[in-house]
């Protein structure tokens, strides 16, 4: 098994290919965690993106070796992307299976920020988010971290290597931008 801690180390050392290896690992872990959680826990149990991502972090990363936020940032970046894919996949499945039989699915509805959002809205949001990311990459990253990985603004700022104040502003901008697009039905 490729070790996430090692990958983070490679990223630290400037290996550009390492980041690509990170995502699948984090994705698998998160997916596994989410599934387990929902299978083994009582009905009505909520599942929080924050908890999932942090748990994945604790499971995948040897924390004593990775104390620097820099590499933690990489991890959370990957985790946010992973969560986004999980959520979006989930939303698509849900839409597709709307009339199908009720198969046991990962109930991501309860994932925190996501989200009471119905699948259609989530998918729409995702599209707009892609737009934002293409025009304002940092804003896109920031929203992903906040929205899918459940990071706080402070943590997101650190993960992105942004000064806090500037992260706050980018966040305000991203929110306004997304809000406007969503209202417009873009």
């Amino acid at each position, binding site marked *: 098994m490729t070790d996430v801690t090692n990958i983070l180390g490679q990223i630290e050392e400037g290996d550009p290919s390492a980041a690509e290896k990170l995502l699948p690992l984090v994705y698998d872990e998160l997916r596994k965690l989410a599934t387990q959680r929902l299978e083994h826990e009582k009905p009505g149990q909520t599942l929080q993106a924050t908890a999932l991502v942090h748990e994945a972090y604790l499971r995948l990363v040897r*924390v*004593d070796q990775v*104390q620097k936020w820099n590499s933690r940032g990489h991890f959370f970046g990957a985790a946010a992307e992973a969560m986004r894919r999980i959520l979006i996949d989930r939303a698509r499945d849900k839409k597709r299976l709307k009339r199908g039989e009720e198969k046991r699915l990962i109930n991501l509805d309860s994932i925190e920020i996501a989200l009471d959002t119905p699948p259609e809205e989530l998918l729409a949001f995702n599209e707009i988010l892609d737009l934002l990311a293409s025009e*304002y990459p940092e804003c896109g990253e920031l929203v992903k971290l*906040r929205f899918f990985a459940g990071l706080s*603004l402070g943590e997101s700022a650190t993960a992105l290597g942004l000064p806090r104040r500037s992260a706050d*502003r980018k966040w*305000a901008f991203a*929110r306004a931008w997304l809000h*406007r697009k969503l209202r417009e039905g873009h």
Partner: protein
Amino acid sequence: MSDDNRDIQAIFCEALDKGSPEELEQFLASACGDDSDLLSAVEELLSSHREAGRFLGGGATAEATDIRPVTEQPGDTIGPYKLLQQIGEGGMGTVFMAEQTEPVERRIALKIIKPGMDTQQVIARFEAERQALAMMDHPNIAKVLDAGTTATGRPYFVMELVKGIPVTKYCDQEHLTVKERLDLFLPICQAIQHAHQKGIIHRDVKPTNILVARYDGKPVPKVIDFGVAKATSHRLTEKTMFTQYGQIVGTIEYMSPEQAEFNQLDIDTRSDIYSLGVLLYELLTGETPFDKQRLRSAAFDELLRIIREEEPPRPSTKLSSSQSLPNTAVNRKIEPKKLSLLVRGELDWIVMKALEKDRNRRYETATSFANDIRHYLKDEAVEACPPSAAYKFRKFARRHKATIVTAAIITSALLIGILGTTWQAYRAISAEGELAVSLTSVKEQRDRAIDAEALAASRLQMAQFETRRAEKNFRRAREAVDRLLTKVANDMADQPHMDEVRRALFEDALEFYQGFLEQKGDDLAIRYEAALAQQRVGEIHFYLSEIEKSAEDYRLAVQSFAQLHSESPSDPRYRESLARSHEMYSGSLFLLNRLEEGETQSLKAIQIWADLITDHPLEPQYREKAARSNLQLWKQYGSKYSSKRVQYREAAHEILKELRSDFPKYPVSQDFYTQFPNLFADRLRELNSTDTNPRRQLEILIKVQNLPHDRDQLRMIEQIAFERAEQHQQDVADHPSAYEHFAALDEDWVVLTGVLTATERWQELEELYQRRIELRNTSVKTWAEMVSHHVGLAFCHFELGHLLFRLDRRDEAKAHYREALRRFEMLASDYPDVPMHTMHLAAFLVDCPDPEFQDFGRSVQLCHQAFQLSGPAWAWEIIARANLMAGNLDAALAALEQARQAGGWEPVCQFIESQVSFASGEYDKAIQLYETSIEVIDTVPNRFWFLLEFRYYRERYEKTLAKVEQSNTAETEDSAQAVEIEETKPLPAPKSHEEFETKKDDKPMTC
């Protein structure tokens, strides 16, 4: 990305900073110039920004980004309150002293919560709990009176004004002692308990929430902020734990593991117990369990992990490793060393119980927490520790300091063994592993007794205490007292100095049992309990030397058990008890010289065991018990009917052999091994072949005090012992007054002594002895009142003397012999009624190879004096050897016969007899006896204790025998004569292999 986009974002962001609409307009006009598209795009975004509200969890300002301070000032009015002055500022808010005019005029404390909270939710949560809060009425709780919202939209709380300082600060400032701190801690527990009873959990117990103020000159702690934490901390448990990282770090040291869960909402009263535990920890040690710096520097999830998973160091450990210990100690008016000593033990346990990760294992309530502290303060057994007998004894001892001073002397005498020196006492003790453990604790207990504050009452209340505690039902009560008696009293039963303590203890226990007997009923179980109690009364009478009474008690017990057995014959419990009571009855009868009756009783017991073996062939313990029963009968006969007793010993041997072959894994009690060395040798060989873990082997070897013959094994043991000694040496250097390190080091060195002797590395051995003497010289000062250290020192000198004598450095040897003799003499005269010390002296007078120190007549006299003409086998062996050396060969043979009848180990007896034969010129017989004896002796692994001496004597004796043999072959009378002249005196034999009889099983020490 287009320039446009960058502009939009930049302009938007800058626009956010503009305070007034005019300013904004002005800025936008100048930033966008005549680009109306740009202007409208920015304006749309700005309006979206204003409309977005909680979209995506809210804007940056919903979090801790708003760092504007509380702007309220003294003089401002908030609701009906007028702010007077700021009296505090914390992570959560700013506290003002304020004045209330309506409805009553009073001063109150008003806490304005810092930004970052959702005011409405805070207030809503507070309101939800307001009624419960209003019901709290406790002198140690500052009431929370009101909550509201300031004009700037921040929540505030109004509470009773406490002009105090945080409890930790107060304690240090006033230099409160540990006891005073505990006294102050109790009402805090009561306050928390009160709240818990009203259904309120504090959730944020920490020093700054417990203020101490003086009322009427007395310090009164007040818990503040009830209800506040719940109202404000809700979000701390969820996502915002992260966003409010900075804020919660201030209190995270006090946070319970369940509060440190990502997902938890499940907090109950036991979280407060945990925080109380942290507080107590800090009051004792001056530090929180987890280092503040470390928590602060850890990544957040790491920090949570620490709280959830890491076992904090015990308070005493924390203290001894703390850099600021001197300062901490000064603040508690105590010497640094004593502080950690004081905290070690019960206080450690109490604190650690409160800090259990699993809340089910914490104290159930704040009251039970407080009660345990009260137990500690009253020197009663604390709940926090599993009530081992040794621990209870420790407690008991502290309350009875007066008597324990004498008890300590006995304890010390027994401890000789644990200290690993060489004498029979050690073997007696090591035969009872459990006893050794309890004795180690006895030593600890005694250390503590020195610190005990009050002189104890003269009556021993332990039994009553036990009774009270367990009065819920008979069985538990009886068991509690039984436990106390067996573990504490019986272990010391044969030590003369213990009489006073023991008698008082027994008298109390007797009272208890007799009270118990009055309550017996018809129920089978109760009758069984009653019979056991009757038996106990018998035992007590026995120990109090009221043998007639004891016999009567045992008779009654036998009757009751027999009745029970006849009513339910299939219950093995009744049969076992019946057998046991027969055995006890037998013991008393033998002492009363009613031998035949006694034998009948024993035979009944033996028959029952035999039946049990038949009925339960797969239960090895019945075989062991049958063996024990036979052995007991043999011992009871002692020397009186030697022909009869042998068959019982043989029977025991047979049963044990069978047991060993049928149940090779059954752990036969070690005292059998000392009784039957052959069995023991088998066992050891087995252990060596099956247990490959060298460390484990070493432990076993230490326990049975033997070294293997095998060189490889020796080397392994040496290496382990060496490593351990290195470590323990460091420990001793670091903690010179910690007894356990000393004992451990001494044990290692004893093992190394054995190894070096076995491998004949004399120079290293000499150095080791020098170090041991050095260590002992320190220890006799550190623990001056402990006899065992003096004995140990005497033996070190004695043994080093042997070594030097053997190396032909006789003058140096003399110096050590002299010192050894001086010490043995001193001990014998200081403790005339502890036979062991007299026997040490007697043995020295025979064993010392330097004629200057030999005094055989006196040695014999001492042996007789110590045991009043009766005594264990090894005492007779000393007498035999002393007579041999003095040339009284007939007396030597007679003593040898006594030794054999007392159960002396045959090879050793033969060895001595060989020497007697030699002395009387019967060389062939001498050689034959020697060969028979040495053959057996060589099968048994080396005993640590007689290795050096025995080797020495054996070598010399062998030389002598060899010369005789040569001369016999040459058939030259003259040369044989010459040999005899050269070696005028036969050599003394080694000390006996026999046990210094384990006393519990054969109380009548008759010979």
